[in-house]
């Protein structure tokens, strides 16, 4: 039996790599995707383009503007002189924020009167706007504090918030995203290869030839999935090495555990790929089926959108998503250095999910052969 599986695996590898163009697809595209993803998928907000409408033109207003510039969060692109310009800049999307000081800003400060600064935001991208707002507010508050006389401040009650961020103290989203990107790329490549390659064989008619050989159904399934598992592992190593060296991320936890968990994860991924191949008659269907699974799996995994913000019914649905568990595992290993003692529930869930999916798919595959 082992001999037959070995032969079949060798044959599959020959078949996959016979087309020379498959090599760059398997070895190069994951790296490109990782780098693009790693850089693009960032929710950090900095360099918010800003215009300044300074009506006061005083020492004080310039001091405030300098604070905005020095913060690193805002980039002042333009100074405007008329309200129409403000509208045009925002309409065209040239700037996302406009800082406006009114006449009498400095005079008020000197007299000790309360005064106001206006900040106008383009709320199109609500997330950026929200974060930029809190930055703007912090800058203005700091500026106001720098003006206050110590005598008066002493009598005021103030609540200071001392904030600390754990695991990712600079709040860099890249550290958080790169492990997740690794997980989804492994999923995409394995799903597509498994589902399309099997359907292709059926489309071309070579599946019949395999069926007349003495191969038993189980051997056929193993022979078909093992090569993709090997490619999955290989891509995992490749992408992890590139991710770690290119983005200079350190893996806090155990590499051995990462390998083990990748194996459990691939069980589900290959199972789903096999399943898609059993319900598709053409490669087109396989491709669309893969996407129909892949898109919600990525969006509802907690990669970019926290699961706890989703409606409760959807939250229950995510328990069926292998990516959900693997994300916790891979982030835990990369960022927190978690061990089995913390990650075992996810590992167990992923294992149960994987074996179930694999069994169902194998049964369907067997039935279709008969």
């Amino acid at each position, binding site marked *: 039996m082992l001999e037959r599986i070995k032969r079949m695996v060798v044959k599959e590898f020959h078949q996959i790599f016979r087309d020379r163009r*498959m090599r760059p697809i398997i070895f190069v595209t994951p790296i490109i995707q990782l780098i693009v993803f790693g850089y*693009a998928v960032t929710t950090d907000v900095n360099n918010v383009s800003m215009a300044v409408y300074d009506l006061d033109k005083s020492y004080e207003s310039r001091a405030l503007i300098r604070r905005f510039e020095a913060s690193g969060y805002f980039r002042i692109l333009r100074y405007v002189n008329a309200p129409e310009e403000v509208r045009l800049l925002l309409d065209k999307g040239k700037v*996302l924020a406009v800082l406006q000081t009114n006449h009498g800003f400095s005079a008020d400060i000197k007299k000790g009167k309360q005064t106001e600064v206006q900040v106008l935001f383009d709320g199109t991208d609500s997330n950026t706007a929200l974060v930029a707002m809190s930055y703007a507010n912090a800058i203005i508050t700091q500026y106001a504090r720098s003006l206050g006389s110590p005598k008066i401040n002493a009598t005021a*009650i103030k609540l200071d918030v001392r904030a600390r*961020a754990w695991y990712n103290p600079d709040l860099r989203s890249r550290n958080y995203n790169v492990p997740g990107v690794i997980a989804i790329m492994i999923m995409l490549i394995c799903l597509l290869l498994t589902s399309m390659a099997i359907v292709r064989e059926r489309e071309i008619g070579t599946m019949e030839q395999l069926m007349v050989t003495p191969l038993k159904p189980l051997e056929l399934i193993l022979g078909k999935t093992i090569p993709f598992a090997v490619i999955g592992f290989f891509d995992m190593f490749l992408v992890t090495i590139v991710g770690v060296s290119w983005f200079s991320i350190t893996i806090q936890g155990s590499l051995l555990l990462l390998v083990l968990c990748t194996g459990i994860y691939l069980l589900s991924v290959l199972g789903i790929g096999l399943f898609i191949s059993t319900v598709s008659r053409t490669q087109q269907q396989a491709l*669309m089926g893969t996407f129909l699974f892949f898109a919600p799996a990525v*969006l509802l995994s907690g990669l970019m959108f926290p699961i706890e913000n*989703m409606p409760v019914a959807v939250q229950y649905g995510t328990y069926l998503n292998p990516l959900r568990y693997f994300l916790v595992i891979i982030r835990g290993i990369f960022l927190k250095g978690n061990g089995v003692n913390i990650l075992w529930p996810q590992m167990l869930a992923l294992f149960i999910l994987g074996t179930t999916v694999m069994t169902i798919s194998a049964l369907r595959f067997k039935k279709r052969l008969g």
Partner: protein
Amino acid sequence: MKLMRIKAIVKKESIQILRDPLSLAMAFLMPVMLLFIFGYAITMDVDNLSTVVYDRDKSSMSREFIAEFRESRYFTIVGYAEKQADIDRYIDSGTARVAISIPEDFSKSMKTGRNAEIQVAVDGSDSNTATIALGYISAISELYSQRIKKNPVASFNSPHSGREGEAGVPAKRVVALHEEGATQAPLIAAPIVTSRVRVWYNPELKSRNFIVPGLIAVIMAIIAALLTSLTIAREWERGTMEQLISTPVKPPELIIGKLFTYFVIGLIDVLMSTLIGIYLFDVPLKGSPLLLMMLSGLFLFGGLSLGILISVATKSQLIASQVSIIASYLPALLLSGFMFSISNMPAPLQIVTYIIPARYFVTMLKAIYLKGSALNLLVFETVLLSIFGFLVFMTANRKFKKRIE
């Protein structure tokens, strides 16, 4: 070029598509599914952050302060810590993402008018949520301290007196909050500079309002990548291309015939997405629907031509699918500014985005939807998309002719 032959190809393609109802169903299901996920299931708004509280003061005042968090929809208190180690456990296991620790002398300081310091720890793994959470915490604390300043005794005795109006604090309304701050009488006679924040175009700051318009671009890219990139490769793989070559049909006729069929599917998808966005998700469409459809058609033409070009060049469905994911789907998803703003990307990647047609289309979509822009503001993008579509279409034609000979 003969219209009759194009019509024949269109007919052939339509029959082929209708014969495979599963693929067609998936082509229509895909946008609906994506819209529902983005419309209902996920939101970039930060809500219900699981929070653990370590109340070392255990006074009515500290409880009142905690209530502020409990009542705001941003925080859900999942547990109370008894010692510092509990906090570590909560955050390490991911049960809580925010920990608020109130010092022993909290109420004493508040009553005597000294500064009190609350300690906050956030799980910074998700930096975005963490930043927004910190903003909310400072806003809630700021409001609380302002109220104490104004009326320390009343607030001490009756935790809920007279604050119905502002219950639930900055319910997505950093805006309201600042304006409140501005109208409140200055309690300290120090020169205070307050900020008045206004938000344009999407004043409620709903992430749905900017996601749904951009999503149309992603849906178009998927349709183009998944459907057209396989069409010509399939003919080669199955050997039906030889039959087509033996007919008098000319390459541009074949390409136009195939394009047209998928163009119709794509436009139906746009129409469906627009209607679902407006009627189910209340996403306002401020600009002209006609302009939206016309520009979508323009983008679709370029996208479908690219799919055909990939199909012509690779002649293998497996490879075509991989190439089109990289050339069409991923850029539309990641580099178009659909979800991740381009200004945050590193400079080399920003330059790359200029050659991504979806970037221009997403700009257009957001402008038409949220700003109500007319064509005169979108001339640059329109011209670029036209050039792109034309170039890709011509290249596909040229490539195809070579292969057929």
